[in-house]
């Protein structure tokens, strides 16, 4: 009986659901060590490589995108600057044109003023000469008239021939006198004016007598 029991016990199949403590311990230690090793030495490397790879691919795309954005912005800036420059140039041209017009108007104004000034000066000169001539004439006319009258009276006036001759002679004399006076005068214009005035004066004087 005793033997049979031992035989049965020896023969009795071991229960596969009963764990062996040794296997639990070995499994636990092996698994824990493996986990610690992989977690500290291997998986961080993989994570790093993943991150680097992600950065290399995604980062490259992001960089390209950023560069494109920058290029676009730069182009926009250049376009703006160009437009500004064009605007500025147009403004400058307009300004120059306006300034030119102003300058021309000013110059014209100046020239006209100068012309007016010259004209006025010439008029004044003429007036002064005229006055001087009249004053001189007034001095001479008396003496001339007296001289002419005395000559007319002194000579017998028989015919028109003689009379004309007398007048001509008188006028010649008058002219000679005027030429002398002109030689004595400083300004040619003045002399001419004087000459014309004295001739006019002579004419008037002749008319008067």
């Amino acid at each position, binding site marked *: 009986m005793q033997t049979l029991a031992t035989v049965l016990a020896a023969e009795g199949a071991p229960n596969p659901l009963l764990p062996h403590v040794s296997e639990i311990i070995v*499994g636990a230690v092996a698994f824990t060590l493996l*986990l610690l090793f992989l977690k500290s030495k*291997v998986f961080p490397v993989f994570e790093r490589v993943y991150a680097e790879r992600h950065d290399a691919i995604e980062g490259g795309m992001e960089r390209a995108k950023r560069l494109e954005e920058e290029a676009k912005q730069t182009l926009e800036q250049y376009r703006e600057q160009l437009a500004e420059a064009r605007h500025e140039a147009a403004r400058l041209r307009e300004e120059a044109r306006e300034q030119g017009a102003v300058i021309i108007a000013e110059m014209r104004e100046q020239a006209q003023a100068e012309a007016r000034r010259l004209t006025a000066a010439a008029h004044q000169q003429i007036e002064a000469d005229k006055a001087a001539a009249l004053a001189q004439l007034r001095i001479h006319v008396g003496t001339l008239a007296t001289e002419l009258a005395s000559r007319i009276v002194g000579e017998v006036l028989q015919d028109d021939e003689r009379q004309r001759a007398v007048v001509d002679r008188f006028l010649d004399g008058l002219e000679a006198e005027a030429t002398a006076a002109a030689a004595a005068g400083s300004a040619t214009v003045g002399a001419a004016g004087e000459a014309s005035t004295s001739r006019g004066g002579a004419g008037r004087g002749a008319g008067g007598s």
Partner: protein
Amino acid sequence: MHLVNVAQAAQGTQFEAPGPGDFEFAPFLGGSAFLTKPTLIIVLGSLAIAVLFWLAARRASLVPDKGQFIGESVYGFVRDTIVGDTIGREGRAFVPYLTTLFCFIAVLNLSGIIPVLQFPATSKIGVPLFLALVSWVIFNYVGIRRHGFLGYFKAMMFPPGLPKLIYVLLAPLEFFSTVIIRPITLTLRLTLNMFAGHLVLLVCILGGEFLLVEKGGVLAALSIVPFGFSIVLTFFEAFVQVLQAYVFVLLSALYIAGALADEH
């Protein structure tokens, strides 16, 4: 024992079907219980994972070489496919644990079809039990940390928007399924899948061997059938072993996601 052997010898050619006894190993060199085939496989498997990952990460660069690519793919699979689809962004903290979990289970599962080793260490319930308990601690811990102790259990047992009477039934069920059933199913699903898979392979191979060696003649020639089956089943086992690792990790991630979620 002696009696049995004698009896078998007398019977001559009696096929002894493999059973749970084939999952028990005597310690090497008469040493302690810590030096058995399963524990050796656990240590070797862990070392293999550590070395392979170390090689993969040793010269990590932007453009990966083959080893780095494979290592990254495994890590990225857990990180993006499993964690990314269940927990989302805040799941980052759990990626190291879940990735290690996936590799650990997958390698110890695959040890069942790796020549020479040819024993899935995860068919020993101690390994899945420990891993299931770790997942259990993690998801309950993050749930309590997120919602507070009472808040966590309230969210678990009293999902809002149901008739009051339902809670009488639902609350204990939810507690039971979440706190008690989850670690048990995690453990048993993995253990028994590996156990059964290994047992079927054993039946095929030992059966074929029995026909070839013990019988002879026509029956020996027929041994090609179980041997052929064992090859097909090996490929199937490879699929199941990876799938079970995936399922274990996916469920762990789902449990964590559920504990973190605002409503169950």
